[in-house]
C-alpha cells in the first residue's frame, strides 16, 4: 500500500512552546488513520500543519509525493479538510456552501450542479440543501462541513475532532458517513480524543501526547504491545489499577495472588493502551 501522507521529524513551535516535537508517521492509501490524544496534545496543530495552514519549524511533509513547502498548490488539490470548528459560511445555504467549495476547487463549471446534487444525494443531505447553515443542528452542520470537504473528491480527507461536542445519535451518523466515504475510496486521517471513536473507525492509530507520538500501530498491535489481557483491580489506597498480560493463563496466575481483593479479567482495550502510554494509568 502506498503512503499518501509522509511526515518526518515535524517540529512546530509557538514562541518558546513546542506544540509538535519531532513526530514522524505515514498515512497509507485507503486506510482510516487516527490521531488519538488528550486535549492540548498537538493534534490540531499537526493537522493544520499537514493541510498547509500552519507553518512548521523543521521536518518535512509530503502529500501524494508533493512537498507541502515547495509544492503547496499541488498538495492542496489532494486534500479535503473538515476543521474542528465548522468552517462554513453560515449566512449561506448548504447548497450555496457546497457550490462555493466546488467553485473554489475548480470543478468544471458545467459539472458543478451535477456534482453538488449527486454528492448530497449519495450522502443523504438532500433534505437540508436549502437550509441556511446557521439554522442546522450541530450534527448536520458537521455533516455538511464534511461533505463540503469531499466535494472535489480529494485523495485524503482530514477530519479534526469530527464528533467533538455532538450527541450520541449525531456521532453515529458521522461514523457511518466516515465509513461510507472510506468504502468509496477516500483515505481518512482523523484526530480525536474519543478512544471509542478511534477503536470503532481506525485501521491504525497513533497516540500523541505533549507533542510526541508515544506509540502507533493497528488497534490489535497496540493492545499486544502492553498485553492482550488486563487484570483490573483496586490497590490498597483505593485507586484503580490495571496489570497487563500476554495471555489469559498468566493473567489468572496473577489474579490468584490478589487474595480477597476484587478483580476483573478482561480483554485489553485501546483505552488501556492510551492510559498506559500517556502515563495516566493510576489517575484513571
Amino acid at each position: 500500500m502506498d503512503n499518501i501522507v509522509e511526515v518526518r521529524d515535524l517540529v512546530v513551535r509557538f514562541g518558546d512552546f513546542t506544540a509538535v516535537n519531532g513526530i514522524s508517521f505515514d498515512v497509507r492509501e485507503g486506510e482510516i488513520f487516527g490521531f488519538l490524544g488528550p486535549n492540548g496534545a498537538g493534534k490540531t496543530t499537526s493537522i493544520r500543519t499537514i493541510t498547509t495552514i500552519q507553518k512548521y519549524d523543521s521536518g518535512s511533509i509530503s502529500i501524494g509525493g508533493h512537498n507541502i513547502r515547495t509544492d503547496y498548490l499541488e498538495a492542496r488539490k489532494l486534500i479535503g479538510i473538515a476543521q474542528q470548528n465548522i468552517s462554513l459560511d453560515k449566512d449561506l445555504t448548504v447548497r450555496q456552501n457546497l457550490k462555493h467549495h466546488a467553485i473554489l476547487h475548480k470543478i468544471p463549471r458545467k459539472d458543478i450542479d451535477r456534482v453538488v446534487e449527486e454528492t448530497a444525494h449519495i450522502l443523504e443531505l438532500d433534505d437540508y440543501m436549502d437550509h441556511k447553515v446557521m439554522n442546522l443542528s450541530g450534527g448536520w452542520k458537521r455533516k455538511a462541513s464534511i461533505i463540503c470537504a469531499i466535494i472535489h473528491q480529494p485523495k485524503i480527507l482530514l477530519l479534526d475532532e469530527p464528533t467533538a461536542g455532538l450527541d450520541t445519535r449525531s456521532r453515529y451518523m458521522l461514523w457511518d458517513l466516515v465509513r461510507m466515504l472510506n468504502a468509496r475510496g477516500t483515505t481518512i486521517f482523523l484526530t480525536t480524543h474519543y478512544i471509542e471513536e478511534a477503536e470503532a473507525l481506525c485501521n491504525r492509530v497513533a497516540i500523541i501526547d505533549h507533542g510526541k507520538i508515544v506509540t502507533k500501530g493497528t488497534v490489535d498491535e497496540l493492545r499486544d504491545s502492553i498485553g492482550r489481557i488486563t487484570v483490573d483491580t483496586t490497590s490498597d489506597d483505593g485507586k484503580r489499577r490495571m496489570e497487563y498480560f500476554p495471555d489469559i493463563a498468566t493473567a489468572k496466575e496473577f489474579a490468584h495472588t490478589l487474595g480477597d481483593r476484587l478483580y476483573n479479567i478482561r480483554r485489553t482495550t485501546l483505552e488501556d493502551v492510551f492510559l498506559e502510554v500517556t502515563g495516566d494509568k493510576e489517575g484513571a
Partner: protein
Amino acid sequence: MGILDETFRVAWGDLVYMKGNMIEVLLSSLVGPLLYLLAFGFGVGGNMEDPAAYVKYIIPGIIALTTLSATFSTVSMKILVQRLFYMSFDELLLCPIHISAIILGKLVQGVARALISCTILLVVGWLLSPQVVISPWIFVLIIVASMMFSLLGLLAGMLTNKTQTLTLFSSIVIIPMTFLCGTLFDSSTLPDGISFIIYCLPLTHVSNLMRGLMLPEYSIGLDSIVIVAIYVAVLFSICYYMIKNNKC
C-alpha cells in the same frame, strides 16, 4: 486558470450573499452619504452665500467618502467574522488558489458595493447640480479607491481579534478621515500640523481626484495619483505577506 478567474471563485460566496440581501446592502451603503448630502448640502449649505455652489462642492467629496464607507466596515467585519467565528477564511487558504486571487476576491464585494452606491449618488448629484461632469474616469477612480479602502478593511480584519478593536480602529482612523479629508470642506483651512496629517491620509487624495474629475475649476493633482497608487501597492503587499506567512 488566471488570477481573474480565481478572483471570481473567491468572490462567489460574498456576491451570492450580496445578491440575496441587495436592499439591506444598498440601504447600509446609501443612508449615510445621503444624510451627509442633506445635512451638509442643504442644512449647512443653506446658510451660505451661495448654497448651490456648496452642494456642487460636496458632491464629489461625498462620492469619495462613499468609496470608504461602503467598503471598509463591510470588508473588515466580514473578514473578522469569517476568520474568528465562521472559520471559513481558513478554507480559502486550503484551496488551490493563489494568494493574490484570495486578496482580490475578498475586495470584490467592497468594490461592487461602492460602484453601485457611488453610481446612485452620481445620478442624485447630477440631478441636484447638473454642472458636475460625469466621465468614465470617475468609475476608474471609484474602483481604485474602493479597492484601496477594501484592502485597508482586509488588513484590519486580518489584524484584529476582537470586534471592539475594529470599532476602536474605526473611531480613531475612519471617522476622522470621513470628516477631515476634504470631503465636506476645504482641509487647507486647518492648522499646518493637522493639514500635513490630513495630506498623508488616502481619502484626502481620493476627494481631490474626484473633485478634479467632476468639477472643471479643479485640477487633477499628480501627487494624489502617486499617493493613491502607493497606498494600494503597500496595503496589497502587507496583506500578501500576512497571508503567505500565516500571520492572519
